[in-house]
């Protein structure tokens, strides 16, 4: 009897592990409107970290790690489904479907929230004299730009 209970516990732990793994790697279904809480260039090389908050108050953090030693084509992107609940950084496969899904989220946010004039300036690389809020949007655009390069066409 004891062995059966212990075995059942092991199977339950394994199942919980699989569910947990799925949870932390799946892109969340963010409720509109999504607001930009924070966006930073976190390293001298230009790593970017952005945190969105959806209508339900759930945060979602994403970005990429830049490096002086590598080309932007291989900068790894990441996201944290809910950094306040599980601060697990999920590193995306370069060029993979998770990156494409993240690109769609970021693209949708930019289309809904960035004024066309600012979007035009960012597309032309004219990022000087931006206000604090615009700088945050520019950081989001950096992520979009990196991912779009990999997934266009």
């Amino acid at each position, binding site marked *: 009897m004891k*062995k059966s209970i*212990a*075995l059942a*516990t*092991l199977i339950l*732990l394994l199942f919980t*592990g699989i569910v947990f*793994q799925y949870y932390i*790697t799946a892109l969340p279904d963010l409720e509109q409107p999504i607001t930009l809480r924070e966006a930073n260039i*976190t*390293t*001298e*090389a230009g*790593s970017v*970290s952005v945190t969105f908050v959806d209508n339900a108050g759930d945060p979602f953090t994403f970005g990429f*790690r830049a*490096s002086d*030693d590598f080309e932007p084509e291989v900068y790894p992107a*990441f996201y*944290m489904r809910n*950094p306040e609940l*599980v*601060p*697990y*950084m*999920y590193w*995306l*496969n370069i060029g*993979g479907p*998770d990156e494409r899904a993240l690109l769609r989220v970021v693209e949708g946010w930019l289309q809904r929230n960035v004024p066309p004039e600012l979007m035009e300036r960012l597309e032309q690389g004219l990022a000087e004299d931006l206000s604090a809020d615009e700088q945050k949007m520019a950081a989001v655009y950096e992520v979009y730009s990196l991912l779009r390069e990999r997934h266009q066409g």
Partner: protein
Amino acid sequence: MAISLALKAIAIWIAILMLAMANGFLREFVLMPRFGTPAALVLSGLLLSALILGVAYLSLPWVKPEAPIQYWLVGFGWLALTLVFEFSFGLGQGKSWSVMLEAYSFKGGNLWPVVLAVTALAPYLAAKLRGWL
């Protein structure tokens, strides 16, 4: 007895997993901005190794392995769980083996192989530190 030991070992591994996640967060958002990527990777690797050893040291009286072989079983069990967790992510994403094995090359200051070695040896080292062996 063996199953009880396995369950306790898994529970401790889950605690180690949580610490590793927090360590990754610390590395990316605190250490890298302050010290740069290579130094942050080294510091993060050393910190995680110390944390794993600390957890092993503190949890040993609860696990109570009865024979020296059980220290190795627990350590290599943790190592196996870690590798399964890591590679199942990579394989699920369709990553190539060369990409997945890049973390094992010490590239850019990544001490991941050292962390794995400490993971496997931690129960034995903790028992040594406690003077049990």
